[in-house]
Structure formats: structure tokens, C-alpha cells
């Protein structure tokens, strides 16, 4: 083993999030201890090491940017990191909290907090790449330990990790699952969603809900038509796209098209 000075330095940063992606490290058990031997974990507040301003080789970033303070903090993380990896739907697409970007006005804070003026937030939630250059994105809500470990392993060997681009359907078929869209007519998001989870939802006999975000070239229009054929109203279809990864452009737009349809229906239907 190389001595400490030569070990790659790693940081794990948290922004607006649920902490679930950090668990991809904290649930590693024995492997976490092994990783701690191979790299120097210099900052990981939830696990103890604290040095947020340290220069590092790899920074893992969880969470979205939703306050003025976070804008400044992510700039410093970028400046201090050779390789920046955003982990999870919050970091790659803004996460579930970017649903607030779709709200018609900015009244939400005032409806939850009696004194919204105590709380500083940005008008729009953004993913990490909306603020700084990101070198690698690991999707998922949450990312899983396999994604994290293979990224670390690749980076330790000095290569850029390969990420999944395929659709969940592909993995589902590989596992020879019964298709819930075909067999049960449930509105599965598998045809447009990026794989990486292991097709967990269909393996449990239920519809995928898109937490890994859009796959490469997703045909969202075709899927929306399919959902319509199943009897879903436009706003129900919009909600399928506007859920955990509503900030990802392909899902953002697909959802908006449906909301427009709903509006037109209302206008014409009287």
C-alpha cells in the first residue's frame, strides 16, 4: 500500500438533499473501511471528517443548489477539486425539490412558514451542473453503492468511469420480467428511464417511476400516447414525468406538454 501522502484525497459534500445518497457510502460496511485504506477521506461531515475547504482529487457532491449560500459553496468545492462527481437525482437534476420550479408563483414558502423572510432561498432550484462544471454524473434517487464503488475503482485506475445510458426496459427484459405495462396496463416509466437500479420496480411487479432520470434519446411522446391509451388524463401523465427528476430537460418538457394539453382541454371543454 502506498503511504498516506500519495493516496488520492476524497471529499463528500452535502447540499439540499435527504442524505440518502451519502448512505451509498455509509451502508458499504467492510468496503467502507477498505476504501478508507485506499483513499484519504478528508471531508465527509456526516461520517466525521471535516475539512470543507480542502483541496481534493475527487469530490462527490450530493444535493441540489437552492440557497445563495450554496451557490458560493459549490464554487469553492469546484475550485478545490480535480474531479467533481455529482451523485443522485438532487445533484444531477435538482431532485424532488425542483418541483418548486414548476409552481406558478413563489408563494410556497409563505404557506409553510409563518415568517418566510427568515429563510433565504433562490427562486429556482438547480442541479450542480447548473452552477459549475461537473466531470461525472451518477444518477439515481438514491445512487447505489455499486455505482459509487465502480466510480471510485475506475478513478483510482485513472480512467473515466462508464455510466449507464440504456433504458430500464432493457434490464427488465434481460431479467426476463413480466412487463407490467403490457400485462397489467400500469404506466411504467421504464421505456424512457435510465437503467442502473437493476429494474427494481418491475421486479416487484410495479411500474418504474423514473428516479434514475431520462435515458439517452427517450421517446417521451410515444410513452405519453401510450399512457393516454391506458386512460390516463393529461395531468396524471404530467405527474409521471414531473416527479423525482422533473428538472431533467426531457422529463421537464414532456410534463409541460401534458400540462398545456390539460389547459387547452379546460379552455375548450368549458
Amino acid at each position, binding site marked *: 500500500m502506498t503511504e498516506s501522502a500519495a493516496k488520492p484525497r476524497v471529499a463528500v459534500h*452535502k447540499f*439540499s*438533499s*435527504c*442524505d*440518502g*445518497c*451519502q*448512505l451509498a457510502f*455509509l*451502508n458499504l*460496511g*467492510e468496503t*467502507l*473501511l477498505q476504501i*478508507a485504506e485506499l483513499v484519504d*477521506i478528508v471531508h465527509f*461531515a*456526516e*461520517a*466525521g*471528517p*471535516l475539512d*470543507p475547504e480542502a483541496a481534493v482529487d475527487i469530490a462527490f457532491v450530493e444535493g441540489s443548489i*437552492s*440557497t445563495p449560500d*450554496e451557490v458560493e459553496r459549490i464554487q469553492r468545492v469546484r475550485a478545490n477539486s480535480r474531479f467533481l462527481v455529482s451523485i443522485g437525482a438532487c445533484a444531477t437534476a435538482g*431532485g*424532488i*425539490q425542483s*418541483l*418548486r420550479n414548476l*409552481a406558478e408563483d413563489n408563494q*410556497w*414558502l409563505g*404557506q*409553510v*412558514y*409563518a*415568517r418566510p423572510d*427568515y*429563510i433565504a*432561498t433562490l427562486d429556482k432550484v438547480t442541479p450542480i451542473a447548473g452552477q459549475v462544471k461537473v466531470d461525472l454524473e451518477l444518477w439515481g*434517487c*438514491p445512487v*447505489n453503492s455499486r455505482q459509487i464503488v465502480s466510480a471510485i475503482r475506475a478513478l483510482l485506475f485513472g480512467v473515466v468511469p462508464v455510466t449507464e445510458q440504456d433504458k430500464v426496459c432493457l434490464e427488465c427484459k434481460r431479467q426476463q420480467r413480466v412487463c407490467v405495462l403490457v400485462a397489467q396496463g400500469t404506466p411504467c416509466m421504464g421505456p424512457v428511464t435510465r437503467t442502473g*437500479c437493476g429494474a*427494481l*420496480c418491475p*421486479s*416487484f*411487479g*410495479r411500474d418504474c*417511476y423514473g*428516479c434514475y432520470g431520462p435515458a439517452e434519446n427517450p421517446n417521451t411522446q410515444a410513452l405519453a400516447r401510450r399512457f393516454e391509451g391506458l386512460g390516463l388524463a393529461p*395531468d*396524471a401523465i404530467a*405527474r409521471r414525468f414531473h*416527479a*423525482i427528476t422533473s428538472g431533467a430537460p426531457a422529463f421537464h418538457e414532456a410534463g409541460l406538454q401534458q400540462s398545456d394539453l390539460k389547459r387547452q382541454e379546460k379552455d375548450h371543454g368549458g
Partner: protein
Amino acid sequence: MADETQQRSVELHVPVLTRVEGEGALHLRIRDGQIEQLQLAIFEPPRLFEKFLEGRSYEEVPDLVARICGICPVAYQMSAVDALESLFGIDPGPWVQDMRRVLYCGEWIESHSLHIHLLAAPDFFGYDNVMAMAKDHPDEVRRGMHLQGLGNALIRLLGARSVHPVGVRVGGFHHAPDEREVDNLLRQLRDALPQAEAMVRWTAAIDLPERTQSFPSVACQSDDYPLVGGRIVSDRGLSIDKSAFEQQFAEHQEPHSTALYSLLDGQPYLVGPMARLNLHRDRLPAAVTHLMDSLPIDWPSANPFHGMVARAIEIYYALHEAIRLLGAYRRPAQPFVPVTPKAGTGFGCSEAPRGLLWHRYDVDAQGLITAARIVPPTSQNQARIEADLRESLTDFGLDQPDDALRQHCEQVIRNYDPCISCATHFLRLTTERL
């Protein structure tokens, strides 16, 4: 800084409180040897879940509310299904109820093990983190991680993954595991009982500060040790239906924190493992109470430092409970009951690893949510943590050096295992001595 002639003024600044789930800050002002101001600030950017839920179908709620907290997603799912099923008048039957307990046991084991070994224990053994502690105490750390892994395996059995599991639906589960999977896991759970017992004894043998504090303990109450649903009770005579929560418990906002403060009749109160043990020892199986009787701690306890031991005991309990329920496992024909939504207001509660988690949903006739309210355990404990800090710091000695004070504060706060993600978040400690 210092105006040495009249007053001594020292400022201490610690950027982030480590080893809590999420982040927070503490501000402390000491004037003439007295605490003048003490504020636990939680300023995680608010994620406004209550608003996202408006306009969504009841069917989406379990998957959405899970995202409030990665460490206790099951708790959010359980309080939500409890609320919605209460409103719709659905009884999902014994199989679903049993499996919900099993799933929840998994989350208690996972969350409590994580807290004890990764977050709290390093304090008591003088390490900054678990990686450092593992070098000198490899067996204890491995044992803790093994238990944490078993908790995760239980969640995966019914939820496919341990963070934001996908198995829960209103009315029951999407999927029932087959008997072979259950048997495999059952064997591992049984094998872990001696390790869990040793872990309980290990936490109870740690030299903990002596404290006696007075506070009401609050928890759900059901026939068994509380997990999902039931009444809400305290050890000061409170016993209410979950629908009456808002009449007894009031939340308010303070300028220094994005978490709301919850008070019972205007007073701080405790929720969580210690509150549950203080209230419901008589609902534990004999194997657990025997172990408790052999420990040098009397329950009910008024020492918040016993929180870690309470967590350890609950791990031991959750293992027993999962073994009991899975030991009688039969795969049902269908793992859920059909659901027809109804307009109205539904109230739900359950015992998250960190304590009482209360939900309210207003639903329209189509089953769409029109309003939601969620009161997480950490905002309920927030006032109690501040009250504890005031007492503890005075007992500890306000003249102690800043570093020791900071460390002691962090230790006290960690006893509550605050999940700042749930309550929203950031611990920064500033001390002013005037």
C-alpha cells in the same frame, strides 16, 4: 474581541456539527458565567414537501414522502399509509400489518446501528470518526456494520432497496417475498442475536455522564411495542387520538432555524427510543426485559445519555420482533387490499427511529391531496435538545475551555440522533463569552 477590563469575551466558531444526519449550527452566548442565549439552529434549505404533495394522487404519496429522509424513508411511508388508510376506512389485514412491522424493524436496526457505531460511539472512545475507531476496535465496528447490513437486508426483502424502498403502497405491499428468501434471512437474523446482545452490553458498559433531567416522554401506543399507528400518549397522563395531535402540540417558528419548534402544552418534550422505553417497557418480550434487567441502568431513565443504550436495546428488540413475525411467514395470494379513495382528512402516526412522526392529509373525492402537514421527530425534540444543553453545560462547567464545551455540546446533541434532513438543516457552533 475581548474587553478584558469588564467582561471576558471569547468567540468560538465551529463551521459544521459533524456526525449528525444533516447539518446544523449552535449559538451560545455566555455572560458573566451564565448562559444568556442558546440556540440550536437548523437551516437546511427548506424542501417544501407539504407543497409538492398538493395535487398528487394518494397513490404517489409513499414514493414521494420517502424522499424527505434517506435514513428513515420507511417511517415516512408508514405514517403516510396509516393516515390515508384511516381516512379511507381500510384495514389491510394481519399479513400487511405484520410485514409493516418487519419492514420498520429493518429501518430501526439500520438507523440505530448507523447512529451508534458511525455517529455516536466515536465520541465516547475518543475518536473523530468510525474509520479511526475501526483501527483500534475492529470487532465492535464490524459487528455494528453487520447489524446495520441486516437491517438493510430486511428493508430490501420487502422494499427491493434499503434507501427509498419501492415495495410500499396504500393498502399493503406491491410484492410478497417467497418463503425461501424469508428463510435465508431468518437464519441470519437468528445468528445475529448473540452479537446484538453483546452490542447492548457493550453500550451499557460505556462510562456515560450522570445526568438527571425532567421532561415528558411522548410516543405512540398500541398493543405491541409501538411501531405503526395507535394513540399518542405521554408519561404525564396524556392519551389522545392521533387526530387530536394539533390541539395539544403547537409548532412555532424561530428566526434562527428553518425547523419548526413543537411544544406540548407550551413545554419541551422528548420523543424517540428513550421516550418509547420509558413508556412501553411492559410491551417488550421477556428476552428483552431480561437483558435490560441485567444492565446497570434503571428504566424509566431521566438521563439523556442513556439514549444510545436505548437504541441498542431497540435493535435487540427489533431483531426478536422480525424473527417472531418472519418465523410465521406465509406468502399471501395478494399482498395488498384494494383501495377506494374518499374525500376528507386523514391522520397518521408511527414511530420513526428518532420518534413520533405525525402526518395529516386532506384528500378530495378523486384521491388527490389538497393539503398536507408533516411533523417530524427532530422538530419535536429541538426544544428538548436546547433545554438539555442548558442543563448539561451548566453541569459540565461553563468555565471549561471552548474546545471541551463544543465537544460536550455535540455529544449532548448526538444523544438525540437529530436527523436534520427531516427537520430541514446546518450545525455551526458560535460561542460568545461576554
